[in-house]
């Protein structure tokens, strides 16, 4: 399947063109993307570090996850909402950028993992090894998303 025509269309969309041709739109969207990253990172880290035995140890990981769930969901939504117009503005660059494809693959895995396996471990009474493993996988996946995301600018 050849995705190139699709990406060419992405690049030619009104949103893509508007963001690309504006001097300040891309930087402003990028700033919101970064601030949402801090919030998403915070919400993920507090729970994953708790699973590893760090941070807010007097609370259960389940309780923390429940309290932070709205912040996790909304910051993820903000990241996607700001990520899409940035992507549209340089869809062809992304098409030829290996880090972009890694990022998308890892993002799908990270979101899937967060709302399936990690959620089950958080709400259930699982053994310490499985809890720690879940935290490590979650952190590794999100780290991969962030890392490859930053590298779209370099490759």
């Amino acid at each position, binding site marked *: 399947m050849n995705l190139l025509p699709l990406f060419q269309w992405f690049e030619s969309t009104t949103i893509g063109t508007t963001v690309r041709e504006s001097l300040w739109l891309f930087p402003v969207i990028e700033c919101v993307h970064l601030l949402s*990253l801090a919030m998403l*990172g915070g919400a*993920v880290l507090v729970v994953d570090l708790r699973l590893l035995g*760090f941070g807010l140890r*007097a*609370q259960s990981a389940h309780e923390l996850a429940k309290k932070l769930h709205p912040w996790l969901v909304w910051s993820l939504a903000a990241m996607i909402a700001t990520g899409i117009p940035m992507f549209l503005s340089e869809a062809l660059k992304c098409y030829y950028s290996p880090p972009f494809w890694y990022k998308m693959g890892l993002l799908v895995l990270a979101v899937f993992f967060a709302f399936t396996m990690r959620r089950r471990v958080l709400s259930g009474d699982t053994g310490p090894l499985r809890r720690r493993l879940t935290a490590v996988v979650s952190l590794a996946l999100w780290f991969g998303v962030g890392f490859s995301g*930053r590298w779209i600018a370099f490759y």
Partner: protein
Amino acid sequence: MNLLSFFQWLEGTAGSVAIRESTLLYPIIETTHVLMLCLFLGMIAMLDLRLLGAGLRGIPVSEVAGRLLPLAFLGFTLMTISGMLLFYSGPVRAAGNIFFRIKMVMLALAGINAALFHVTIYRRVTDWDCDSTPPLRARLAGFCSLLLWSAVVICGRMQAYNWFDQAKG
């Protein structure tokens, strides 16, 4: 020796050249700097949300601060080290950049805000530790913290764009 000639000398040192010209070193340092946002600002934001009564309600404020601030300090240390290395790789352009200058001022203000919080209202935290909505001065500190750190991030990001570059020539 004035500051500019010092930065010019700094820019010519072997380490500065090495980071600037390396295809891997610069991106790795920059990625570290960006991702530490999660550990540093992420933890700070969680405490700020608690101070605003908007997140982690039901957990005593002193516990959130006591447990999360050490993690934030770790993030801050890594952020400072990577940030200094980034500055070191191109000090002349950075120092002349208006966003870098605003960023440093915001950084100082964020530090002052945190210090003020700790020596004033936080001293009496036992009186309001479990309030789901902390007193006005604590909320104000949390609000200013979010605002100032956001400004630091925004200026840091804007620094990469060269609209206002003095060294553009």
